[in-house]
């Protein structure tokens, strides 16, 4: 696995806590992390360890209580909500555990959704959507609605949606959590191919050891802190 | 009881939805209550009574009715002949002479006009319709006003609207007419057919809010004295109204049989030929006047009411459908636990009916209080009814309308809920 050494993601002394009434819950504590460009990084840890929270901070869906998050030299932790929305469309692709496709839209239309915010022409959008769906092997399913697709196919659509804007970063939160073993393998193969061929930086939260094996590096979180790193050979 | 408790809890489950549904129900019940109050009063006054029948005697052909005052005493006796002991006398009678005067003779307008009935004040509490159901306080005050009018020939009992007009007129900084009208003096200048008949009045009473807001009552002796005094100051020429000052005679008889006899006495009498007179029951007289509004009343009775009830049923049906759809899993669980389809239907219908009933009652109640106490009646332009009061029955209308619409609207969703198949639901959930 080759990737550049320039960290595309920098997490510096990040703290994240939530308030539940008068109680303060510390989810992440003084966490520092660099992710080089092109790396396929796995985040593992027990429930409540903060791995999804860390993913959300890097994806710009949430903001740290303290510390900074940099993606491609942009300090996203200082951005306001509107700026983050604008940034996310152009820089991040998100893959959900439960796919979260809009049920009344077809596969094509679901993948097209983020492109509608970029002011592209209809022809250009069409080209990109078809490329993305072709990449995930669903060119023959573009008119199907989520209800007409299997779990694995729905997740492929989710991945196509995540890729269609050519983001610098793909974040996947337990992408195989709702899939059977075979479908899960297919999805992981796909993510691996995306990482290698498109040289995309992928951050994946997972409980699945099989998924972890696909990653270049595994980070373990426990009680909001990184406890060990492992590089997968 | 457990089911009822479950129904109550279900209503409180989504407070926002229940609140919106209740508010929508209350608002629509408000419209129905207003409309039905108008129709209710009109139906009451046009309903033929079987006893204590009131009848109007007026000019046979023309409106406004103008009869010679010499007709009055005979008509008040029902044209009963002294030498015919079998002739029926009314149990009570009242002669009306209309007078119209303006507060502003230089700029007469509808707003400055005061329309008066000159009559025997003693007859006001017993013979003027709409004054029967007064509270004890209002009734006592009315009687005191009548006593004052009897004692004061130039007195006047006013409707509330005229007090408002008078209070606007007197901008001299003195205490408002509305608060302390008794003893206040003002003048009226006759207009139209009453031109030349000008009067000074002293307020000796106010009608309770409602039907007589736009009317006034004066002493007939005062009015007739002015008519008698007209010729000497006008080169001996009598006032044009002098021989046609009687507008209406109201009589009361025991029942319809007595009415028919008296009507025959009057219409066959040779004393009333020029002009001829007509005798009709109060309900018939009001009915013929309202006949011109029959299409409007039909629009209120049918399309408007149906539209309100339909909208209400749709609002309730929509709310309960959404609720049932969101709780399909729950319905399936109830079935698995052993609830029968009828019980599930009862739960759904019960939820809707409870909401409809409470909202309907509240809506009607708020309408009653707001219109009657806040606005002193609903002002709606229909003939000589200046205002319509909301009857106390309206509370039951609200309950009936809310419950009925809820029942109608919830039948289909309830049926749908009762037919939920647990196996289908759980396979989807899995």
């Amino acid at each position, binding site marked *: 696995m080759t990737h550049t050494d320039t960290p595309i993601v920098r997490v510096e002394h990040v703290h994240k806590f939530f308030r539940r009434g008068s109680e303060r819950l510390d989810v992440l504590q003084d966490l520092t992390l660099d992710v080089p460009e092109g790396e396929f990084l796995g985040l593992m840890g027990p429930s409540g360890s903060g791995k999804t929270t860390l993913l959300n901070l890097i994806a710009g869906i949430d903001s740290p209580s303290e510390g900074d998050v940099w993606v491609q030299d942009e300090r996203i932790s200082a951005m306001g909500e509107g700026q983050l929305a*604008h940034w996310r469309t152009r820089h991040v692709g998100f893959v959900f555990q439960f796919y979260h496709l*809009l049920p009344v839209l077809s596969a094509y239309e679901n993948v097209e959704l*983020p492109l509608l915010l970029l002011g592209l022409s209809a022809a250009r959008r069409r080209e990109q959507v078809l490329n993305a769906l072709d990449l995930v092997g669903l060119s023959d399913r573009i008119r199907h609605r989520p209800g007409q697709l299997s779990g694995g196919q729905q997740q492929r659509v989710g991945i196509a949606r995540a890729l269609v804007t050519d983001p610098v970063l793909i974040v996947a939160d337990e992408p195989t959590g709702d899939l059977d073993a075979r479908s899960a393998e297919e999805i992981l193969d796909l993510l691996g191919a995306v990482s290698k061929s498109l040289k995309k930086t992928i951050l994946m939260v997972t409980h699945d050891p099989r998924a972890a094996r696909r990653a270049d590096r595994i980070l373990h979180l426990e009680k909001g802190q990184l406890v060990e790193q492992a590089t997968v050979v | 009881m457990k089911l009822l408790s479950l129904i109550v809890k279900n209503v409180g489950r989504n407070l926002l939805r229940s609140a919106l549904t209740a508010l929508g129900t209350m608002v629509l019940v408000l*419209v129905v209550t207003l409309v039905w109050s108008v129709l209710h009063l009109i139906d009451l006054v046009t309903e033929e009574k079987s006893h204590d029948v009131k009848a109007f005697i007026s000019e046979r*052909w023309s409106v406004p009715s103008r009869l010679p005052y010499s007709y009055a005493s005979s008509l008040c006796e029902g044209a009963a002949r002294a030498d015919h002991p079998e002739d029926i006398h009314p149990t009570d009678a009242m002669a009306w002479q209309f007078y119209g005067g303006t507060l502003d003779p230089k700029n007469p307008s509808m707003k400055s006009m005061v329309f008066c009935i000159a009559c025997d004040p003693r007859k006001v509490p017993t013979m003027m319709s709409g004054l029967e159901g007064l509270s004890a306080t209002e009734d006592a005050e009315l009687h005191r006003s009548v006593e004052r009018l009897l004692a004061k020939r130039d007195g006047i009992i006013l409707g509330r609207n005229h007090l408002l007009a008078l209070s606007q007129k007197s901008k001299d900084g003195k205490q408002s007419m509305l608060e302390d009208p008794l003893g206040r003096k003002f003048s009226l200048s006759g207009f139209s057919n009453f031109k030349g008949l000008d009067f000074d009045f002293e307020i000796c009473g106010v009608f309770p809010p409602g039907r007589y807001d736009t009317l006034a009552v004066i002493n007939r002796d005062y009015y007739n004295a002015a008519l008698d005094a007209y010729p000497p100051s006008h080169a001996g020429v009598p006032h044009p109204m002098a021989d046609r000052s009687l507008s209406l005679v109201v009589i009361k008889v025991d029942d319809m049989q007595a009415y028919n006899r008296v009507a025959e006495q009057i219409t066959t009498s040779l004393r009333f030929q020029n002009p001829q007179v007509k005798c009709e029951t109060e309900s018939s007289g009001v009915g013929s006047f309202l006949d011109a509004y*029959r299409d409007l009343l039909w629009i209120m009775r049918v399309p408007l009411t149906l539209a309100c009830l339909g909208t209400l049923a*749709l*609002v309730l049906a929509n709310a309960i459908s*959404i609720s049932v759809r969101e709780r399909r899993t729950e319905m399936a669980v109830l079935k698995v636990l052993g609830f029968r389809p009828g019980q599930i239907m009862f739960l759904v219908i019960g939820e809707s009916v409870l909401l409809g009933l409470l909202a309907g009652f509240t809506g009607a109640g708020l309408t009653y209080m707001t219109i009657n106490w806040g606005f002193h009646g609903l002002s709606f332009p229909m003939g000589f009814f200046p205002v319509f009061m909301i009857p106390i029955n309206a509370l039951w209308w609200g309950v009936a309308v809310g419950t009925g619409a809820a029942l109608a609207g919830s039948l289909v969703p309830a049926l749908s809920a009762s037919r939920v198949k647990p196996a289908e639901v759980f396979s989807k959930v899995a």
Partner: protein
Amino acid sequence: MQGELIVSELVRLALTDPRSLWVLLGLAVGMVLLLLAVNRIPLSYTLRNLSLRWRTTLMTSLAFTLVVGLMVVMLAFTTGMQRMTDGSGQPGNVIVLAEGSIDEAFSNLNVEDLGEIENLPGVRRDEAGQRLASRESYLIVKQPVPHPKPGRSDSRFLQVRGITDAAIAAKVHNIQLKSGSWFSAAGVEDRSGVDSKAAPAIQAVLGEGVAGELAADRTPEEAAAGKNPHRLDVGDRFRLGEKDWVVTGILKSSGATCNSEIWANRAKVGPVFGRENVTTLVLSTADADAAVQLRDFLKNNYAKANILPQVEKEYYAGLSETNQQFLFAIIVITTIMSIGGIFGVMNTMFAAISNRIKDIGVLRILGYARWQILVSFLLESLVIALLGGLLGCALGSLANGLTVNSVVGQGGGGKFVVLELVVDANIWTAGIFVTLLMGGLGGLVPALSAVRLKPLEALR
């Protein structure tokens, strides 16, 4: 009091200046177009969700249909009434009543005063040099209904206008006959050569509305024998004031108050009903300006008689006071019912948002801004409203052309009229505006609640 003034002014504007409605609709449509222009979430998403929940969509839309449809029918009534009062009277006529009269029925002119007034310079003449001035007696008379329908009164009020000279009156009022001819100078039918002891029938010309009203008194046999099954026509007879009357002509009067009048010779009418006075003098001038001049002269400079002169158009416009009261009542009822409809659509939208919380979360994560979510849900609410509102306008329009009875006029006086319901472009404008307003208001609060959701919370 202030509120009353504001509402009265709005009512007056709505009645007299429909442009205000068009402006409001223009603004509303402009807002909708703006929403469509800035909307980024595909409209197909909105439409498909509506069709997915078609029962809810249908029920909510139908509520709009009922509210708007009813509003259209009620406005058709007031528009018909307005058209009637607007269509009555001639711009160049001055109507003279007795001073202080609130209506013709209460007027009593002094006949000695009329000759001089008729000969004033402003009053125009016809080709034969005759003064175009019509002396009239306007009466409201009671007529027993021979065969009252169930629930209907056994008597009715009719408007009879006694005319001194039919030919002059026709020129003054610029009115033609639809059929038949004017009554003769004698005012009664010519019975010469007829061997009958019965008094000759009084000749009358009827407005189409009252001709239809009186036709309802006919037995089925009489109706079958008549020329026109729907109304009395030339040659038909009716009974009024214990006299026989015969129809000599039908007025071309649709859209005017004389549509509900019976015109006959004044000399014959007066004795029948005991009203032989002149109530009204109508003077014809060259044009509207001349009428104003004559009115002003009579009002300010003519002291020889106690009269109330008015430009005829203004007199009939004043009758629309009842209309304004009805319009106010309609506005109140429509507003209240609309509020009920708004609560209904709010329920639907809150439920829709609740069902699509995850969609909202995904859209936010994908980068859609809060306001874009707001726009999408607002459009959804507006589509529901438009579906129902347009159908309501269409169904309400079926009332166009129907005739109804009513009363126009000021309190104490009034004219019983048969008027035609009119659904015009202004009513459609009002219907669509109310639809968009209800849809917008009903969708706004739920849409605002949708945009407050945080993406992560939405996805949990």
